């Protein structure tokens, strides 16, 4: 997949060969677990003992760690700083100039970061190891509306197209003397000649695209088949139910314990 901004990394691995819905169930259950599990350390444990090994199994460990770091670190840093510095009352453990970092704040940040880490990394694991179109086909087979799945999958490929179009418009307007560097007022005035062509020409494109889809029988009711075969097995099906069943169990456990 050359164009598009999907996160998918193609690998020949067991993780990749798992049915998309199996991976989606895991992400969904871990989302629930993030809120149900007690203490700040359980989410880190799940990350280390469940998600990292799965990423390694999927041969995407370096890419996985990179994506997780990119998504979670900014949050984590600001969380630690804000909660640490602004926690009302509390016992200071470190000083930053005249300001102090409070232990309670840091503990809170630790717990929140753990939750974010678990949620984000479980969905990243899904995105990095699953082709978006296959995920959509899997969902469509379970009754997910096809128009919705079309929108999701095409967004991945269409965004670079819009970026390209925006660049072309910028080039054209600059070639007509539009200055884009400079003060706020100048940049605001530059907005109209940049945004209007994007919107208007997109409308034309959308109409043509709708016609093309109709001509490919997209609007047809009735069962659709699929070229792609999604390998599945009874074992995986059982596994999916087991994983999903964990979610309410975890919720209960979290409330009781």
């Amino acid at each position, binding site marked *: 997949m050359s164009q598009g901004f999907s996160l998918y990394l193609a690998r020949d691995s067991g993780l990749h060969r798992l049915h998309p819905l199996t991976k989606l169930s895991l992400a969904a259950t871990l989302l629930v677990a993030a809120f149900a599990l007690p203490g700040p350390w359980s989410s880190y444990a799940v990350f280390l003992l469940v998600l990292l090994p799965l990423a390694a199994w999927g041969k995407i460990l370096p890419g996985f760690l990179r994506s997780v770091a990119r998504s979670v670190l900014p949050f984590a840093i600001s969380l630690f700083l804000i909660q640490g510095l602004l926690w009302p009352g509390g016992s200071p453990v470190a000083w930053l100039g005249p300001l102090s970092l409070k232990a309670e704040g840091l503990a809170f940040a630790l717990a929140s970061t753990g939750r974010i880490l678990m949620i984000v990394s479980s969905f990243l694991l899904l995105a990095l190891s699953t082709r978006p179109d296959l995920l959509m086909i899997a969902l469509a087979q379970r009754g997910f509306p096809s128009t919705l799945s079309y929108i999701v999958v095409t967004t991945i490929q269409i965004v670079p197209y819009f970026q390209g179009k925006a660049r072309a418009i910028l080039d054209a307007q600059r070639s007509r003397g539009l200055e884009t560097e400079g003060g706020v007022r100048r940049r605001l005035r530059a907005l109209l000649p940049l945004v209007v062509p994007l919107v208007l020409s997109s409308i034309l494109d959308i109409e043509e*695209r709708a016609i093309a889809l109709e001509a490919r029988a997209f609007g047809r009711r009735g069962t659709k088949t699929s070229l792609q075969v999604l390998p599945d097995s009874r074992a995986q099906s059982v596994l999916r139910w087991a994983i999903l069943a964990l979610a309410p169990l975890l919720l209960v456990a979290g409330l009781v314990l």
Partner: protein
Amino acid sequence: MISVQDLTYTYPGATGPSLSGLSLTVPAGQVCAVIGANGAGKSTLCHALTGFIPHFFRGTLQGGLRVADLSIPDTPLAELAGTIGLVFQNPFNQITGARFSVLEEVAFGLENLGIPREEILDRCRSALELTGLQGLADRSPYDLSGGQMQRLAIASMLAMRPRVLVLDEPTSQLDPAGTEAVFLHLRQLASTGQTTVLLAEHKLEWVAAFADRVLVLSAGSLAADGPPRQVLGSGDLERAGLRSSRYTLVARRAQELGLASAAPLPVTLEQAVEFLT
């Protein structure tokens, strides 16, 4: 295969009809070219033959319109897809964007039609071969040149085995190499005799070499209808706001100056060489 009787169509909100009293019969397997000035109604006719008029564009339609034994106004678009195919100018807008390889892109329409998987593979392979794209089956559809994308759009239609294929200026955005490839592959398709082809085009040199029959549209009506040499060599073109190809213009001038015989005017390079020798 195509039967149009006294067709008149007006776009919603338009002051006058875009097609007026158009009548046309096209037998199965024929390759028909439709030419005309911009605004003469070529695109409107293409949309009418494929059901987008009236189902997509609305407006008022009068007259008989039957394609592939289906009455267009009475058949919903979803049922026409697969029997009647449409390819248009902009290659990019015909890529669905929902599939990540050329092979899967071609399969998209067949999946929607509910064709069994094995048959999908067969049909896709032959459609890709017919358009010379078999080496690019694993490529991303967006990683193609304009000409290749247009051939992909054609392959995607061909896989659906339409009885009638309508093409609305398919080479307008392509370079000469892309144009030549499209015409060559259309010629191959036409030679199988299994598909009736209606092609709206500006490039008269190609039309002359390729079509069985040429229709001239002018202000929404048919101004001429006949074999290429007859239509493209006559004065009908100028009357319809078009211009004959340079081969014809040279031959006509030569005739006027007494440098050539009174034979029918040539419309292709080969005919012109013969005419002037």
